[in-house]
């Protein structure tokens, strides 16, 4: 009887303590693997993909959102809204899309949409409760876009976890990312193959605690 009363009391208390769903954003430059990571999380915990990933840059040109993603790790549960954002870039050249086999008009349309996507991604920074910054670990981390994204998150006091993605590739260099951003947690993952993904889920709990 006492136990039942306790359970009832705590369930009422939890209603009042319930926070709105945490918004967990995925940010980074184009082609770092943001959507591949979002798909990995959604497949693991919702059983469905979030969006289409592609080797052609700017495949994600609008904010994508999955609500109430519930992750479990070490017996604990965490629920959040996962937000996949378009890659942030300082330049968009439609001719790059033509080189990938697109027709001129299609390439120009994609470029136009991509510019809008960048603007939208930046505007959404203010809405985030925590952010995963996905960097391609085979590339130079000192890119200004990376510094701008992380600098803006730091200015807004938004917790950040940096993911060095594509650790399955030979040229992957996590140490370089760690050296570039020494005050942030950096975790190597392969979103495509799921390498280190369990550690990644544990880190999410630390990020949004």
């Amino acid at each position, binding site marked *: 009887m006492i136990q039942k009363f306790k359970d009832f009391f705590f369930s009422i208390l939890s209603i009042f303590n319930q926070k709105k769903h945490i918004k967990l954003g995925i940010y980074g430059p184009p082609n770092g693997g943001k959507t591949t990571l979002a798909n990995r999380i959604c497949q693991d915990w919702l059983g469905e993909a979030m969006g289409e990933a592609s080797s052609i840059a700017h495949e994600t040109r609008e904010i994508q959102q999955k609500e109430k993603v519930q992750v479990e790790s070490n017996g604990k549960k965490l629920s959040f809204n996962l937000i996949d954002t378009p890659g942030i870039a*300082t330049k*968009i050249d439609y001719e790059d899309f033509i080189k990938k086999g697109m027709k001129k008009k299609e390439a120009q349309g994609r*470029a136009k949409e991509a510019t809008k996507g960048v603007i939208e991604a930046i505007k959404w920074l203010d809405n985030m409760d925590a952010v995963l910054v996905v960097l391609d670990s085979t590339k130079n981390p000192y890119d200004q876009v990376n510094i701008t994204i992380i600098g803006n998150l730091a200015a807004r006091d938004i917790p950040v976890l940096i993911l060095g993605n594509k650790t399955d590739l030979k040229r992957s260099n996590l140490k370089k990312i760690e050296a570039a*951003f020494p005050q942030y947690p950096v975790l190597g993952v392969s979103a495509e193959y799921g390498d280190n993904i369990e550690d990644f889920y544990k880190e999410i709990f630390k990020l949004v605690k």
Partner: protein
Amino acid sequence: MPLIMQYVPYEELSYLDSDKRIQKLLKIVKQNKVVLMEGTLSSQEEADLIEATMEIVDSKFKGVEISAFNPMEKVTKKTPQDQLKKIFINLIWGRRRGLTVIGPANIIKDIRRDPKSIQLFLSNRRK
């Protein structure tokens, strides 16, 4: 066609608000010049510069390449002592410290930087 690098001293920008500062920098870049700016932009100004750039990207203007020296303080988590130090330094220097390079993407193909150097790679199809 020669590559023109235009030096922009801190004094030229310091009296402008963020919006006008960004418009001034973009105006120079749109003239196919590379800006060498004394000092750095704030993180918010960098984001605003990207937004403003994206609004004017078209088939001729592809955007910008940007890189800054001394930007890492922006990505450093601050202790209260660090914050005090930063306020004090900003009172004396403003954002004068460091150097920012901004170039049009149709001329500057890539800017690679490490903590001690900046490499500018020029495009083959300069127009």
